[in-house]
């Protein structure tokens, strides 16, 4: 599955990058969300994949008996997911406010902060 996942992740990165390069503000946000998924899956794959052995001790064990999945990437991803959620929520509010203020969903209409004059 690592090989298959590497292609899934590549696909997600590609889709995410493609979407953030659109001029539509909603696509931008969606693209960022896809990139988040891609990064999380990437970390997950980096912990190597283990089927069906969560890093939870059985009630009769005093230590985790192999085989078990690497718990560290899981913890990292959990953190990353939650952080991503906060950021994504802010970005969502931002595009709403942007649309209310600017009246367009076209990112190419936001040139004023980069104009030379």
């Amino acid at each position, binding site marked *: 599955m690592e090989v298959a996942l590497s292609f899934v992740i590549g696909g997600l990165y590609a889709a995410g990058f493609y979407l953030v390069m659109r001029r539509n503000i909603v696509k931008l946000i969606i693209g960022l969300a896809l990139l988040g998924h891609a990064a999380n899956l990437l970390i997950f794959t980096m912990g190597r994949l283990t089927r*069906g052995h969560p890093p939870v001790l059985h009630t009769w064990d005093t230590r985790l008996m192999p085989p078990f999945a690497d718990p560290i990437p899981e*913890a990292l991803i959990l953190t990353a997911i939650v952080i991503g959620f906060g950021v994504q929520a802010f970005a969502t509010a931002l595009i709403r406010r942007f649309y209310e203020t600017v009246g367009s969903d076209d990112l*190419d209409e936001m040139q004023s902060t980069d104009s030379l004059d």
Partner: protein
Amino acid sequence: MLLAVLSGFILALAEPGLFRMTGRKTGWLLSVFPVTLMLYFAQFTTSIASGEKLAFEYPWVSNLGVHLNFYLDGLSLLFVFLICGIGTLVFFYSGAYLTHHPELSRFYSFLLLFMASMLGLVLADNGIALFIFWELTSISSYLLIGFDHKREEARSAALQALLVTGTGGLALLAGLLLLGEAGGSLEISTLASLGDSIRLHPLYTPILLLVLAGAFTKSAQVPFHFWLPNAMEAPTPVSTYLHAATMVKAGIYLLARFTPILGGTELWMHLVLPVGGFTMLTGAYLALMHTDLKRILAYTTVSALGILTLLLGLGSTAAIQAALVLLLAHALYKGALFLVAGILDHETGTREAERLGGLLQSMPITALAAGLAALSSAGFPPFLGFVGKELMYQATLSTSQAYLLTGAAVLASASFVTAAGIVGFKPFFGKRTPFLREPHEAPFALWVGPLLLAVLGALFGLKPDLISERLIAPALSAIDAQAIFTEVVLWHGFDPKLLLSVGVFLAGITLYFGWSGIRRTLIPLDSSARWGPNQWYYASLKVLEGICRIQTRFLQSGHLHLYLLIVIMSTIVLVGSRLPEQDVLAGFWRWMDLRPYEAMLAGSILMAALMVVRSKSRLTAVVALGVVGYGVALVFLLFSAPDLAMTQFSIETLSVVLLVLVIFRLPRFKAYSTKMERTRDAAAALVSGGLFTALILAATAIEREARLVPYFAENALELARGRNVVNVILVDFRGFDTLGEITVLSVAAVGVYALLKLKAGKTGEEKSGKFLRKPP
């Protein structure tokens, strides 16, 4: 010694306070300061004259080898006297000249700043310290040229001077640093003893070029001369002090100071000599092409600086001696002439040579000062100017290219005679011209300066022994330790030099009477006004601005999607550049372990992602995004991460809800980009995706030891008392991450709230409101 140098800076800072107490009289009060300094330095005269060299060491930034080490020898002393002496007069003069200027206090501050910097420059032994003072003179010069800052011309001239001398300054810095590398020391006195090894060092050529660039820009050598006439926007005392007597001579000082280190080579001669000669002629020619008194003086200054450079380029003992005498003579007469020009401007309201005349009756003392200074400038005996010129001819005549050099010197000198006539005599003789206001003799404070300088010029000419042994000889030995000093005398007897002088006077006087005509004939033919370096300067500023605009338009285009494209392309290039060295496909055989339902899941995620990309409806895209998210959660689940799956399911749903909350307020998707843009972006996106695939394949192919895992497996229950290792990591082993993470969440919440509640235009008086409850 340190106090002597630094007191000027301290005084510059304290001056506004002083000014508040003493008001307009501050200038006279301040002129006491340079006098004091001069007295202080005068005490060393005797020991210096007896061949001593005084070193004063003040450690400063020892880990960079930069020290405030000072070194007092004949050369420094000569300059110190110039700086202090003329400084005194300029302060004295300024009080009267700028009496009613509202920013007089700042003027004094800047002038003090300059004076102190100049002192530091000529006294510093450490190359970097020298450079620091060098730059400070540029800055204070900038502030002084732009003193009349409301005028565009003044600002632009100040900037020009700063940029030109600043560029040279940077070159100088580089040169000094290389010199430090080559010689192993930054102390000039140490380097001077290593001259031979430096001249053979492979870095000698760049060092020389860089140092000369510094010297030439500062001393207004062609083609950098144009800033000096433009700097005449400065108040006249400034022109006198900086742009005639002292600062422009810093470049000359530098040449002289570095002669023992860098001088005496073929290259030196081939660079310095022609530049000096060319500057001399250009200045002489251009001086006659102008009618503004200050400009005429400025161009003759350029010419004089050219002469000095030329002489230092020659490098023979005679040439150096001539340069030293001329340096002093020029400072005296040019200072006086500038001050006179200032008086004329002050009293008549004009500086146009063609509109001035017949002022002798109303301004006799000024006329006297002007006349004496002009005669010295023209090289009439018995003035110091004459002595200098004679020495110059002597130096040029004894070279291998005597005819060429002497001829050029003669030409320039003739122009000097003419210019002296225009500035020193024309305003006072001839027909009285009408003026806006009735001119009177200037007050004492104004005329005493020029008169004193002019008289000194005469005095030193008549009795050269006053300076010969005490000033010139030690200065000469500072530049060339082996040099054999010949007494400076007024009268060499009847020899070719005198003949040359007589010829020069005749030519100059002829030129004087034909001046207007010649000027009018030549000006239309003269293309230097249109194609000269001044125009290059402005053209290069324009080009620079154009480049800046094009570059900025191109890079900072305002199109977010282009920014992203560039970032993504950079990632591809940077990351991809070395990846091919890795055997990316080493672990590719592992695709065999793929199970059908996993393949289905992977395919679904990819399909859904594709659907997100291709969807033409906002909400459809969001639904598909939800599928991707759920798919990812299922991956987590299938590979033993129930906590992750739970969180991912919940958060995905919440995110989708939030997205829907917002998206339904936004308009439907429209196609903004062209097909070509889409193809381009898709290509970039696909390549970057492939890059990540390759990275993952490469990384997972590496057998690695998961060093942290056994510890957690062993101790999760034992020490951290939890069976769910992931949760134990989150709240205990790596709880600090989680602390940061909930901070992020909290801030995001505050952000969403504030962003949506705080509306522009209501920012001023709006009360905060509460998070949940309605505002009362």
